């Protein structure tokens, strides 16, 4: 025969429905003889029954379902595009442009390795110069175009046509996509601000304070415009050029 303490230790397992049949028999046998344990078990069972069956809670508003669905519609309308997609659209071109710029900066010869004197123009492959004037001329100032035309030219080689020209075209396309993406993002932010998106407003204000205005301009100084001026192109010997073109 089990003791009262043993019986009380079994209450949880019994009420959880995890007590083995043999122990249930022991417990019932004990409760038949012990009014205290019988009373306590009856109380716990009654509590469980009331919690399970008594519906004493207030009722939900009749319009609850309609309100949930209206709120859902509102959310679906106000968030037609998912931010990760927008960020991917903007971020990927930006990352590509940054990678190209970084690669060029890393492969640029340092100041102390340059063989030209200050103010001296570095010779530029003719194809590259024509490409830059033709494709980006509209966005350049007259002074920049004039400077570009005054830059000494060297004859293009197969290397320029095969490698550099596609690279420049790729870079131009990347910059254009980045600018478009930035405009899209700006538009979305402004529209969200107009919709009263509080967290975004705070984020936008913080961004305005902490980050400088970033503008894309092909006339601005720096690696984005000057990168093609820095490499020193050494003209090939006729024999070397023949070999390269044959390759």
């Amino acid at each position, binding site marked *: 025969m089990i003791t009262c303490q043993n019986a009380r230790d079994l209450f949880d397992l019994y009420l*959880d429905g995890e007590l083995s049949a043999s122990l249930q028999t022991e417990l019932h046998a004990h409760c038949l003889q012990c009014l205290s344990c019988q009373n306590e078990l009856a109380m716990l069972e009654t509590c469980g029954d009331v919690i399970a069956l008594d519906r004493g809670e207030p009722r939900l508003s009749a319009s609850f379902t309609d309100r949930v669905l209206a709120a859902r519609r509102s959310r679906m309308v106000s968030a037609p595009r998912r931010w990760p997609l927008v960020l991917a659209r903007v971020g990927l071109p930006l990352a590509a442009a940054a990678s190209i710029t970084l690669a060029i900066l890393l492969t640029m010869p340092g100041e102390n390795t340059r063989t030209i004197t200050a103010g001296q123009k570095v010779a530029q492959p003719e194809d590259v110069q024509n490409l830059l004037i033709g494709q980006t001329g509209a966005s350049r100032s007259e002074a920049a175009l004039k400077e570009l035309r005054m830059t000494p030219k060297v004859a293009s080689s197969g290397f320029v046509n095969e490698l550099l020209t596609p690279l420049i075209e790729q870079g131009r396309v990347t910059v254009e996509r980045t600018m478009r993406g930035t405009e899209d993002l700006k538009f979305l932010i402004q529209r969200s601000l107009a919709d009263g998106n509080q967290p975004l407003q705070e984020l936008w204000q913080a961004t305005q304070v902490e980050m400088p205005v970033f503008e894309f301009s092909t006339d601005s100084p720096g690696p984005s415009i000057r990168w093609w001026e820095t490499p020193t192109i050494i003209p090939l010997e006729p024999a070397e050029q023949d070999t390269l073109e044959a390759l």
Partner: protein
Amino acid sequence: MTRSKERKLVAEARNGSEDAARQLVDSHKDRLFAFVWRIMRKHDEAEDICQEAFLRAFDSLDSFSSQYRFSTWLFTIGYRLCLNHIRRRKSLTGEMDFSSLASPEPDAAVCLAESEDARLMKSKIWEAVGRLSPPQKAAVMLFYREGMSCEDIARTLEIPMATVKSHLHRARGRLRDSLAALVKDWTQIPSLRDIAS
């Protein structure tokens, strides 16, 4: 609602069907509200939490695993929201507002027709339940009202199963302490279970 029908409705709601969403809300709202209200004991807050729980569930239907019941997922979201509200309420007032837990709102006294004694008894039991901690209340409600196993409760509340058992054990101990003096002989109330049903 059968499991296959629930999966079908979830799939349709995921594709934007408002009718499916309505059926899901209608079939779960009362159970979710009872669970949330028992923890919060404030009608407005409980209703707001239920609405937010449904919206969050719909927003992230893509991540819903059909191996679980939709109700389990809803209760998980609802419980998290309850805890957030309680923490916020605590941070605003500096302490818990136990007054809202001790006595139910007037509209909560909508019980089944019964004798005055039985009504008083149930009221005392619910008061004792109201004094439990939120995790204990949640465990007790899911165990008794929803008929969940300890394993399902552990998954719903995102706690170990041993902790669920501990919550149930402590909850029963507190109920026993609160109610022991209420009735001298509980075995002499044979009709209570029938009345509750």
